[in-house]
């Protein structure tokens, strides 16, 4: 069997295993979905009128704020889903079965690849679910072209891949599930410090660079531009750059950590 066939076949096996886990024990995934959905409902129905006026809408009308907040929340959903990935990778590494995999003549990277592909699929499903809620409460993306839709989807997948690789690394260095969940917390907190909820120029001056130069902001701006059919400017390249950078960094980090001798 050629190395590539081996890699594909073993990764597919590992992916099936991870999906089986997710299907058998959906509570972790569902819990993580709850955060973005709760935030969406909270910001739209409770704070919506004020926020809407705040971002320069025509008076208190929450529908304008829905359009503003949904792209950020979709990306936050990815951040939230991959926290689950960090937890399940860390859980997995404490299991004897990983030691067994390491002593088998399988493609070595397949254990991690299975997690990565599974996590990206889960992220996409979660985004679709949260997106469904958003549409149900009035979000519309009718001004976008088909091409913009495809680009938006591509960005979501790319962003999920990047965050997943980072989360896998975080899971690998965490001694247990609690530590993994703590280590991955920035992936949920970063969107709060981005342009997801309020525009950056509405933030205090000293804070604006923090919000501007982090991966979520360009990705959110790009997704917002694509879904609402407004321009994306230079944010598209920035977002793609961040994603590729994080993905490569996470990949190198994770594989190095996985190839270390287990304790």
């Amino acid at each position, binding site marked *: 069997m050629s190395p590539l066939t081996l890699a594909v*076949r073993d990764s597919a*096996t590992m992916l099936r295993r991870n999906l*089986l886990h997710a299907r*058998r024990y959906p509570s972790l995934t569902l819990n993580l979905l709850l955060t973005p959905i709760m935030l969406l409902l909270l910001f739209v129905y409770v704070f919506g009128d004020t926020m809407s006026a705040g971002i320069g809408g025509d008076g208190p009308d929450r529908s304008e704020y829905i359009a503003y907040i949904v792209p950020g929340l979709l990306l936050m959903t990815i951040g939230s889903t991959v926290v689950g990935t960090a937890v399940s990778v860390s859980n997995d590494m404490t299991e*004897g079965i990983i*030691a067994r995999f390491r*002593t088998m003549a399988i493609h070595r990277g397949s254990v991690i690849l299975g997690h990565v592909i599974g996590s990206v699929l889960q992220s996409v499903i979660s985004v679709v679910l949260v997106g469904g809620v958003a549409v149900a409460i009035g979000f519309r993306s009718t001004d976008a072209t088909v091409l913009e839709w495809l680009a938006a989807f591509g960005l979501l997948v790319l962003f999920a891949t990047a965050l997943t690789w980072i989360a896998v690394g975080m899971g690998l260095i965490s001694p247990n599930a609690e530590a993994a969940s703590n280590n991955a917390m920035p992936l949920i907190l970063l969107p709060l410090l981005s342009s997801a909820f309020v525009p950056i120029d509405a933030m205090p001056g000293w804070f604006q660079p923090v919000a501007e130069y982090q991966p979520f902001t360009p990705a959110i701006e790009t997704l917002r531009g694509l879904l609402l059919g407004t321009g994306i400017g230079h944010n598209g390249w920035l977002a793609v750059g961040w994603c590729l950078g994080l993905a490569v960094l996470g990949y190198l980090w994770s594989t190095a950590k996985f190839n270390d001798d287990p304790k």
Partner: protein
Amino acid sequence: MTNPAIAANGLRKSYGDKTVLDGVDLVVPEGTIFSLLGPNGAGKTTAVKILSTLVSPDPASGPIQVGGHDLATDPQSVRAAIGVTGQFSAVDGLITGEENMLLMADLHHLSKRERLCVTAELLERFDLTEAARKPAATYSGGMKRRLDIAMTLVGDPRIIFLDEPTTGLDPRSRHNMWRIIRELVSDGVTVFLTTQYLEEADELADRIAVLHDGRIAAQGTAEELKRLVPGGHVRLRFTDPAAYQNAASALGEASRDDESLALQIPSDGSQRELRSILDWLDSAGVEADELTVHTPDLDDVFFALTGGTGIPHQPEEAVR
């Protein structure tokens, strides 16, 4: 004889400045059971982890071959030849026993038909058919071990590592495990077994190596090892202090345990020696309330091999 299944020279491993293995030489002929015996922390698990490619040995180690393949240059071929059942259960608790087996079959790249056959056959052989559809996390300790070994056997490994396969099992499960291990070897498989129990090594192993402080303290058959150890004795227990005192003065060479009113007479436990002791007791008019024969156990072997007092030095022939 062809190549040995396992041949390790000068196996070394240290973590920081703690030396776990300090130059261990092992040779295991094909189709035999080899047992590495030692207390907790002796380095047994580390030895298994290195030989099964899980951790790498220190660079100062000599050449190590498993299944005829060099561990350092061709670990993937080693992995294809071996099966490992670690000390801690290596089953996926979240999925069912059957799914665990199918997972192994898939990783061994068996065909669709084979994977079902092998799974059904091994589940049947290890008495797990009934529990096959339940999550492995709900299994008892003994069932988990059986599933663990069943998973190891998918793909017909020629060399099997079992790290303390019976630790924590009840006596019945332990005997089942012994039966399973004997069956494996009758199929021509080589078994590398670690254990804390001399009894277990005695039951199963063709050769035993005693590991202490990262070195092989002694190596040989169970018989050879027991002969090295002066721990065997006959113990006489009395309930009446007067009878105890009489016996103690009559049997001058017995060592006394005044608190429990017991005397210990050195003995190798053979029928001949036992008879002569009984004759001696009769002639001395000693009648004990309880007589027990103690054969050397791991404690004795350990105190003997590592205590350093009054121990016959092991002759070179017994080392190889």
